[in-house]
């Protein structure tokens, strides 16, 4: 058990806009061991994509980022521009969401996959890069002719695979998958998940999997962290957190997805009422209290910190 591959300590991210400052991430800490996999779940606006982008310092320059991010032993936030560029895609790579917008419309997908190889010189020549591109495309299940296709000529599922192939181009240590299965239909989702699982095993990838779909994470990840209003509100082994949640929010999230084959889950009203809070306008005390079925008076006063709720588990709720 050496050093974790990724270590985040007390990360605060604040956007500064014309209307004011918006705290998107408010003190997040997490670790991922080498070869491990962490799932990060939450509704939109909870800060998970902001967190993902911050790991490679991809946020707009006016964004205020404090805390510590250590990736493969390097302090990401204090790297020089040259050092940062070297780390990007080689130590950590991101599979972005919304594949059509993540790909340059006027460049072939093959060129886009080969590009980082040439930039980081992990391929010796154009031909080597091309060969490796075709190899990667094959590995993600796409035929050779796809290399000369433009993004708009591929289906959504195919584009997602291209993004995965692209992320693997420089053999990264950490793979960050930001909502890779959103907006794909169930069949394709399953294929993409299976692919990620295979890749993780054969390349000993460390995986950070971000999504709003809890059921997906329990399949793909060892550990789970739930985010709400810019903070982690529960953390622990995936199945444990899913089956037996400590935090009321996790419980609601887990119940929101009917289990196929379980008729009772179809009948029982679940799903969380209300909307997630806007980052600039958080409720007092625990930000979840307006939607929490178990809220008490104490919940309006102070925001609970993460406390141990079981072996290797923690949750941020006063009821724990």
């Amino acid at each position, binding site marked *: 058990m050496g050093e974790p591959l990724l270590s985040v300590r007390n990360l605060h991210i604040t956007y500064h806009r014309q209307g004011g400052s918006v705290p998107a991430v408010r003190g997040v800490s997490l670790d991922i061991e080498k070869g491990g996999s962490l799932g990060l779940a939450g509704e939109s606006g909870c800060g998970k994509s902001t967190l993902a982008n911050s790991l490679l310092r991809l946020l707009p320059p006016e964004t205020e980022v404090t805390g510590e991010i250590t990736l493969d032993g390097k302090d990401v936030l204090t790297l020089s521009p040259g050092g940062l560029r070297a780390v990007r*895609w080689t130590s950590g790579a991101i599979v972005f969401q919304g594949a059509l*917008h993540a790909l340059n419309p006027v460049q072939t997908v093959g060129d886009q996959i080969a590009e980082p190889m040439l930039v*980081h010189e992990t391929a010796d020549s154009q031909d080597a890069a091309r060969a490796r591109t075709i190899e990667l495309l094959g590995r993600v299940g796409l035929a050779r002719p796809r290399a000369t296709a433009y993004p708009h*000529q591929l289906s959504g599922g195919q584009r997602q695979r291209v993004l995965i192939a692209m992320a693997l181009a420089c053999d990264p240590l950490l793979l960050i998958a930001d909502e890779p299965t959103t907006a794909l239909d169930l069949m394709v989702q399953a294929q993409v998940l299976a692919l990620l699982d295979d890749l993780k095993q054969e390349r000993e990838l460390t995986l950070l999997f971000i999504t709003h779909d809890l059921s997906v994470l329990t399949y793909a990840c060892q550990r789970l962290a739930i985010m709400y209003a810019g903070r982690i509100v529960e953390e622990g082994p995936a199945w444990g957190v899913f089956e037996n949640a400590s935090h009321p929010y996790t419980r609601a999230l887990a119940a929101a997805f009917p289990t196929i084959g379980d008729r009772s889950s179809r009948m029982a009203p679940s799903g969380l009422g209300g909307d997630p809070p806007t980052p600039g306008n958080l409720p007092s005390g625990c930000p979840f209290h307006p939607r929490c079925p178990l809220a008490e008076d104490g919940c309006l006063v102070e925001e609970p910190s993460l406390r141990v709720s079981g072996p290797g588990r923690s949750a941020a709720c006063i009821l724990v």
Partner: protein
Amino acid sequence: MSGSDRLTSEHARRRGRRRLILRKVLGSILTLIFVLVFNFFLFRVVQTDPIGSLFRGRNVPAETLENLRTSFGLDKPIGTQFLFYLKETAQLNLGISYQTRQSVWDEIVVAIPPTVALVGVSAVLSAVIGTLGGVIAAWRRNTWKDQSITSGTMVFYSMPDFWLGMIMLVLFGVVLGWFPVGGMTDAGSNETGLALLLDELYHMFLPALTLTLAYLGEYTLVTRSSLLDVMGEDYLTVARAKGLRDVVVRNRHAVPNALLPVVTLTAINFGFVLSGAIAVETVFSWPGLGKATADAIRGPDLPMLQGLFLLFSAAVIFFNLIADITYSWLDPRVEEI
């Protein structure tokens, strides 16, 4: 659209593109026909007696005039006259100028090269400089670089182009005496070859500067706007995430996408090359199509105006077609329709 494969074969794509081009060419021809119809009927409405106007003030016997009218087919029904007009136009027989009594076509042909030279050079310069300015302004948006470029070009774009020319002419020609005050060559000089060319360029400097300044604003604005749109796209973040330098992200990923509308604009503007400098040519007495138009207005020399209008329209239609085709060739997303 899951599982379906929209990757069409290269062959099918080419076929689709050819069909697209054919449709656009036909569309352009149709527009040109409309222009011819418009041109003919509009001027026919006003030119109630072209022969009379042509020989106004000259002592020509009525019989000769009648013979001329018959030979020009002016006694025939309007439909026949229109077909006659089409035939003549196709043979580049555009009538006779009221003012000079020479063939309209001959007068026009002589005036084309000076205009193409002046406006062509200005169009290229304004496109290049304007686009560069727009790229810088967008990439460094809201900094002083952006604001000075944007405000500066906006000011130039908001003034009458010929007024800017007047200022240039008075300041650099009259007051400072650095440049000539008009014409394309020095009157009375017999230079030839290179010396003549240099003299012409010398005369062209001020009007070209005027036109370039007046029109680069459009390119700056469009490029800036287009690049700003592109800058919000995710694939630029992806490019950065791959470890590319900022400049490379800009030049390899952002700019090519942003340039698509600029290319269209440039091609369209080349269509306006012929008609773009009417007032500026007048200020600098530059012997091109613009000055010919201004002179024709003073008549009014209707056959000249008719011929010039036809030429201007044809140029615009042609270059709009080129713009369309170029865009569909550059943007891989355009297939059919």
